[in-house]
């Protein structure tokens, strides 16, 4: 992003180099003596990095449940021993030394070299392009600043234009004779008010009718139940039998 | 004629109407 591009910033705003992530880490390297061989220094750095990590971890773990400081430190101690053995082994078998040696393979891998050369070329090209874009951006920024300064100084003068000359379109006649729909709708306001009243009345009547219908239904149901009860009292227990017996 | 009418009335009262009543009652039960 532009804000991150130090080259695009002005002198006063230009950001300095990023600070190291942890200051303690650089101290780790400095505490190792430069008189030691390179491989030994690397081995020491590995060990001291482990020690440093443990040191940073301990305060966080102290607050966790069921944490035992003694067992943690015992584990750390045993792991340090293991790591020491491991680094010694790496040193003795020459693995650490290989990290500092330049490749003995003098015979060049043509493909690799070509690719590397190509990459370097692209990098140069993109750097030049980037520089050109930056210059273009700065140019437009200056122009934009200039325009905004000018616009704030300029006054806006209003003047009315002749409609006819302004429109000058083929549809101007049609547009000019367009009816005023807003007015037409406003004129219908009274009608709408009346309609609203009528609708309200109708709604009220419908509600009344519904209420009457419900009442009538309930009344009829009651009467039906009453009549049913009455007729039930007079029923014979076995009308079929009586009917069959009747000569 | 009167006796005939009496007989018819008697039949209605003792048979026809009760039968119709039983039928109606049976329908009601059903």
């Amino acid at each position, binding site marked *: 992003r532009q804000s991150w591009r130090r080259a695009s910033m002005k002198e006063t705003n230009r950001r300095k180099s990023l600070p190291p992530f942890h200051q303690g880490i650089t101290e780790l390297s400095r505490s190792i003596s430069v008189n030691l061989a390179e491989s030994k220094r690397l081995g020491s750095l590995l060990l001291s990095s482990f020690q440093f990590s443990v040191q940073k971890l301990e305060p966080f773990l102290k607050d966790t449940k069921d944490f035992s400081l003694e067992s943690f430190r015992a584990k750390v101690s045993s792991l340090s021993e293991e790591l020491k053995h491991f680094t010694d082994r790496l040193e003795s078998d020459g693995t650490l030394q290989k990290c500092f040696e330049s490749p003995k393979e003098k015979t060049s891998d043509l493909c690799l070299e070509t690719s590397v050369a190509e990459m370097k070329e692209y990098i140069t090209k993109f750097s030049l392009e980037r520089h050109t874009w930056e210059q273009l951006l700065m140019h437009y920024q200056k122009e934009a600043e200039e325009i905004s300064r000018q616009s704030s100084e300029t006054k806006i003068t209003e003047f009315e234009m002749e409609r006819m000359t302004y429109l000058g379109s083929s549809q101007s006649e049609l547009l000019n004779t367009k009816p005023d729909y807003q007015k037409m709708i406003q004129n219908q306001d009274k009608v709408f008010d009346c309609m609203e009243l009528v609708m309200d009345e109708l709604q009220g009547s419908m509600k009344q009718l519904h209420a009457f219908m419900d009442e009538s239904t309930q009344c009829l149901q009651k009467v039906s139940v009453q009549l049913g009860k009455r007729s039930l009292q007079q029923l014979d227990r076995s009308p079929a039998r009586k009917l069959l017996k009747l*000569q | 004629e*009167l006796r005939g009418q009496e007989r018819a*009335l008697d039949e*209605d009262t003792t048979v*026809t109407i009760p039968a*119709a009543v039983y039928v*109606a009652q049976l*329908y009601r039960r059903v």
Partner: protein
Amino acid sequence: DNLLKLIAEVKDKKQEVEVLTANIQDLKEEYAKKKETISAANKANEEKLKRLQKSADLYKDRLGLEIRKIYGDKLQFIFTNIDPKHPETPYMFSLRLNEARDYEVSDSAPYLEHLAEFQENVRKTNNFSAFLANVRKTFTTMVSK
């Protein structure tokens, strides 16, 4: 003497005529009263029968069921609206009281498989409603198959 006898006879006859006339009058009055009573009773019965017939028609129409008393002291139950394609087609069976005064079903048209089972149920429960409902259901199932 003969004349006196004749006069006496005529007097008797006249009295007899009066009595007979009175009797005839009484009989006429009695006849009129009876006729009136019978007429009123007939009218009342007619009204009652009319109402009963109306209710029977209503039930017949609503239930799709006609109940008839037929020859042989049997009740015939005739169902309609069984077959949706031919709603007027009648489906029926008959019911009578046997010697043991129990319900006995017979003459089903068409033949109903479970009629005997329904007969047993109605003998136990006397529930005619369920009995006829089951018969109708069976008829409709037959038709749908």
